[in-house]
């Protein structure tokens, strides 16, 4: 209990700090994107270097919260940085993809070696999702910022609903694996340490699952979000992969899906190192600290706090797009 209190304090203080940064960012930054091709002096009232530090601290806290809340960094990064920092949403999405990509690349090797992420499950899914992500990225960069913010806000609110309501199944029942999954040999066995036994798994409903990954890929590319929030329910609840396999394969999958979209942003000039690098470093350091805290305990309240933060960010993006809260 004492540990729980200390942990809550540990998370509460950074969260207050995070909110202060958000408020300060909104006040100090002109969040109205420039649509004229001429360079203007507007955009920020504080020095350029301060933004890098603010971004580093902000994403560090985001990294902690993302791990404790069980979400990817990208899904928190894009709506929050897009809503409260002075950067154009194009650069935020470009950075968001590289943040999600870096996290997935860092987690991938361990998950693959422990046989929790399955290459046989990931490869067919990744082909669909990464192809769709290219289309999503091209659509997303062609859309006006207002429309992107409206769609982003609506998507984030949808994610909040999924996160708050979706059930999870540790070991879904798959009585009849479908022909496609059997032809591709998508099955496996992994050691479930908590039960001290080997768990054999297979999947079903492969075709509808792959169709859904078209939608997931388009959204990941369009909004620069990691897509773990959608990958896991589809792999787990629809296709019947065990929860651990779904979570791990989803994380690894992002390294492929986000790669294709990241190239489109990179090639279209939508990547600014000044935004990308502090964000990647901040999120990764925050994730390391978050994992250490998680190893001790995981108060359920934090999940709801992250959902609340996400809802706030979604509403902010929606209102920004509708020009109600500029």
């Amino acid at each position, binding site marked *: 209990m004492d540990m729980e209190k200390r942990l809550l304090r540990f998370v509460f203080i950074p969260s207050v700090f995070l909110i202060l940064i958000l408020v300060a960012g909104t006040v100090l930054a002109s969040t109205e994107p420039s*649509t004229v091709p001429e360079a203007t002096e507007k955009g920020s009232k504080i020095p350029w270097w301060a933004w890098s530090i603010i971004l580093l601290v902000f994403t560090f806290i985001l990294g902690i919260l993302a791990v404790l809340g069980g979400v990817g960094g990208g899904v928190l990064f894009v709506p929050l940085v897009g809503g409260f920092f*002075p950067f154009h949403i*194009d*650069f935020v999405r470009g950075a968001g993809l590289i943040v999600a990509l*870096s996290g997935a690349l860092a987690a991938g090797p361990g998950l693959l*070696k*422990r046989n929790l992420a399955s290459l046989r499950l990931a490869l067919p899914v990744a082909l669909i999702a*990464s192809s769709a992500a290219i289309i999503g990225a091209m659509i997303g960069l062609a859309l006006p910022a207002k429309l992107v913010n409206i769609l982003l806000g609506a998507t984030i609110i949808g994610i909040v609903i999924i996160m708050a309501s979706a059930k999870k199944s540790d070991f879904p029942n798959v009585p009849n694996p479908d022909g496609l999954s059997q032809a591709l040999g998508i099955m496996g066995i992994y050691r479930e340490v908590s039960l001290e036994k080997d768990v054999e798994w297979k999947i079903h409903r492969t075709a509808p699952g792959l169709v859904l990954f078209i939608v997931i890929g388009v959204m990941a590319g369009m909004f620069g979000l990691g897509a773990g929030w959608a990958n896991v329910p589809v792999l787990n609840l629809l296709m019947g992969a065990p929860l651990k396999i779904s979570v791990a394969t989803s994380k690894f999958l992002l390294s492929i899906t986000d790669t294709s979209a990241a190239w489109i942003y990179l090639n*279209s000039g939508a990547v600014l*190192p000044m935004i990308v690098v502090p964000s990647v470093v901040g999120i990764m350091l925050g994730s390391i600290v978050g994992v250490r805290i998680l190893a001790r305990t995981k108060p359920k309240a934090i999940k709801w706090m992250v959902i609340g933060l996400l809802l706030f960010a979604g509403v902010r993006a929606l209102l920004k797009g509708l020009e109600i809260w500029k």
Partner: protein
Amino acid sequence: MAEDKTKATGEQIVYANILNIGMYLGLAIVVATFIIYMLGLLPSFIPPQEIPKYWTMKSYDFIHTLQAPTGWDWLAMVGKGDYLNFVGIALLAGLTMVCYLVILPILMKKKDIPYVIIAIIEVAVLALAASGILKSGGH
């Protein structure tokens, strides 16, 4: 001795090892080049203090106003501190393609035809994305 089926397959281990090395290398380059950029050790295409003038722009306006490089044109500008950062970012973004190319011969040796085809198509998709042919923006 019977094969331990709970262990990852050979191609999965190879993929993981390449990913591990490439990820550390990419991140190290990203951080090192960013420090070079911030310290002004190399001239920049856009000096750091000028960036706030442009980061509120749509990416399309940004590249057209500054005549900034698109596609792989940044390679010609790696002598500039800001575009030097793209080396590490491109390495991270290109890592998956390398992993696929490395496991392809293993899949071929196993005569795992469906996955050979999937891997070849994926490499083609990633190569297309990376090629710079597909760009967007301009609304």
